[in-house]
């Protein structure tokens, strides 16, 4: 393990960003945090987490896929993507880091792999940061995530007057070598970890009971009459899906300017009325079906198809951001428990 004094962290950022792009969570001028490209003078945020998750850096909201040019009877297809340069993201929380397991299953582990996402995953290096001050909306522990010991290529802790680093992957260890940091004993983070775990014990949803959200109870959950009441006040906006670190649905569209056609993809939301619209119309005619789809996907369909891995990581963004405060915790508490 390596360490650096808190006051020297910006020097380290300077060094990392010398030959690659570095993103750090910083304040955005609207009292909120977001991942921004590091520049000298920039400060780390005091906020626990960013509004938009680290997912955005690997799976952007909009990206061009392909361009078509038509001349006479010829169609030319042009792949315009620029090569992805290596980049580093610092300050990814344990929950957001787990979201990459969820996304990798979708974009990498099913054939064919998504080459856009793949290029960013291969070139991106994730430095996680343990959560010294979890918030009441945090419930990563319910999904077996340890906020005191996040994964990633490198794990960082802010402990006392130091940042302590541990290289987890080859890529991570190599970067730590390059930074030439002072050594520190392996147990240096233990007191800080203990401190974090004590707080995590007190999280109100830290032990959220997920019994019954599995393949065996799929139809029972699907047919539960209480979806109507749960979705009653849902506005049908896309806030929960767009701040979610694991939502991965997108639409592919084309923009035709008369001379050429730009094919692009953009995030889509199952909360929207035109989501997965087909020639015959939509099979989710009301907000109830759309709402149900989102939570069934997170809590039942995805784990049923991915060895029990839930596609919620307990980051709590939807708890904080839903305009009418309907969220995944309320769904679990309503449909779980005695209904199992």
């Amino acid at each position: 393990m390596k360490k650096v004094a808190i006051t020297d962290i910006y020097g380290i950022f300077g060094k990392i960003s010398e030959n690659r792009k570095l993103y750090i969570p910083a304040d955005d001028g609207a009292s909120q945090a977001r991942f921004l490209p590091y520049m000298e003078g920039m400060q780390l945020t005091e906020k626990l987490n960013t509004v938009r998750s680290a997912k955005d850096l690997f799976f952007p909201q909009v990206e061009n896929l392909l361009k078509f040019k038509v001349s006479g009877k010829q169609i030319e297809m042009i792949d315009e993507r620029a090569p992805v340069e290596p980049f580093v993201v610092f300050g990814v929380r344990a929950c957001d880091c787990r979201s990459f397991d969820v996304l990798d299953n979708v974009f990498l582990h099913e054939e064919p792999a998504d080459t856009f996402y793949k290029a960013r995953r291969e070139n991106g290096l994730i430095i996680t940061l343990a959560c010294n001050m979890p918030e009441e909306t945090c419930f990563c522990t319910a999904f077996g995530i340890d906020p005191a010991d996040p994964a990633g290529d490198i794990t960082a802790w802010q402990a006392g007057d130091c940042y302590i680093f541990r290289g987890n992957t080859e890529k991570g260890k190599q970067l730590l070598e390059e930074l030439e940091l002072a050594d520190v004993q392996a147990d240096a983070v233990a007191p800080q970890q203990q401190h974090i775990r004590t707080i995590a014990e007190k999280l109100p949803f830290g032990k959220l009971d997920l019994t019954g959200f599995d393949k065996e109870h799929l139809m029972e959950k699907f047919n539960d009459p209480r979806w109507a009441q749960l979705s009653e006040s849902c506005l049908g906006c896309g806030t929960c899906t767009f701040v979610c670190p694991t939502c991965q649905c997108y639409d592919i569209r084309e923009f035709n300017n008369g001379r050429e056609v730009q094919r692009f993809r953009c995030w889509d939301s199952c909360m929207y009325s035109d989501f997965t619209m087909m020639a015959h119309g939509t099979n989710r005619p009301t907000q109830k079906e759309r709402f149900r789809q989102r939570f069934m996907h997170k809590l039942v369909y995805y784990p049923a198809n991915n060895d029990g891995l839930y596609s919620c990581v307990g980051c709590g963004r939807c708890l904080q951001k839903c305009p009418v405060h309907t969220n995944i915790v309320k769904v679990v508490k309503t449909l779980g428990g005695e209904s199992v």
Partner: protein
Amino acid sequence: MRETVKAKAIELLENGTVNRVMGWKTGEFFYDLTPAVFTSREEVEKDFVYSVFSAPNLSKYMIAESRKPGKIAVFLKPCDSYSFQQLLKEHRIWRDNVYVVGVACDGMCSMDVIREKGITGATAVTEDGDVLKLDTLYGEKTIAKKDALLERCVNCKSRKVVIFDEMLGENGEENPESDRFALVEKLEAMTSEERFEFWRGELSRCIRCNACRNVCPACSCEKCVFDNDKSGIAQKAAASDFEENNFHIIRAFHVASRCTDCGECSRVCPQNIPLHLLNRKFIRDINELYGEYQAGSDMDTKPPLMNFTFDDCEPSVVYERGSKA
């Protein structure tokens, strides 16, 4: 007031005035209340909450609810009542099927504001006069209620419920002293370049979740053109970030003179974009060009931009005013 509101909900259900009541349902915490329909004494007793966190404006839900069988009672705060009346004027709500209970309001608090003030991890609250006492994961914290208010309440335009079948608490007055145009004036004083940069910066954070549109009582189209695949302008993604910016400006145009300044757009924006400032700029201009006008304040007047009179300003005013900056 909390108990009065609950008792009224039960009374209206039990004496047969209505078969449903819309109010705010308790959440997992004290601050995460959800708009909900209640149909029995038991449901109301268990879950109904009227508190300083009952911010969501329930008027828009009445478009759908008033078309359902039976009659529904809805609790409206002063600013919500302007939205309700404006919707009535637009023939969007079936008035006969709604029983309006006006509730006096001293301003609504927001957990986002409390978090901005540096208090995190709050799990419980007790109201002690003008102070909120919060139990947090990091010990007990206090914050003055006035420091936890939503912007729209800090600059409250009116404490008067403008339409009701019954009023709970003493009805308030309009507040002409409200400082709600202060920031608009500041923006007007900027050069056009500075103003352009200001809005480019603010709107650059938009993630196009459509929460502002979906919560807006003035945006009540059955299907928004931007959601309609056949409209030719369906816009899940914009061709450029400037197009994204335009969405908000055009939406402000569409609701101009019908927007009551209820402030829901800014309350729900996950990216803290001060969208209400666009609407307030329109309101200020309308006041100046067409005479003082408050959308939703009555049933008789026509919104200036949906009306024509010989006294209307000439369209050339756009060029004259534009050239000043």
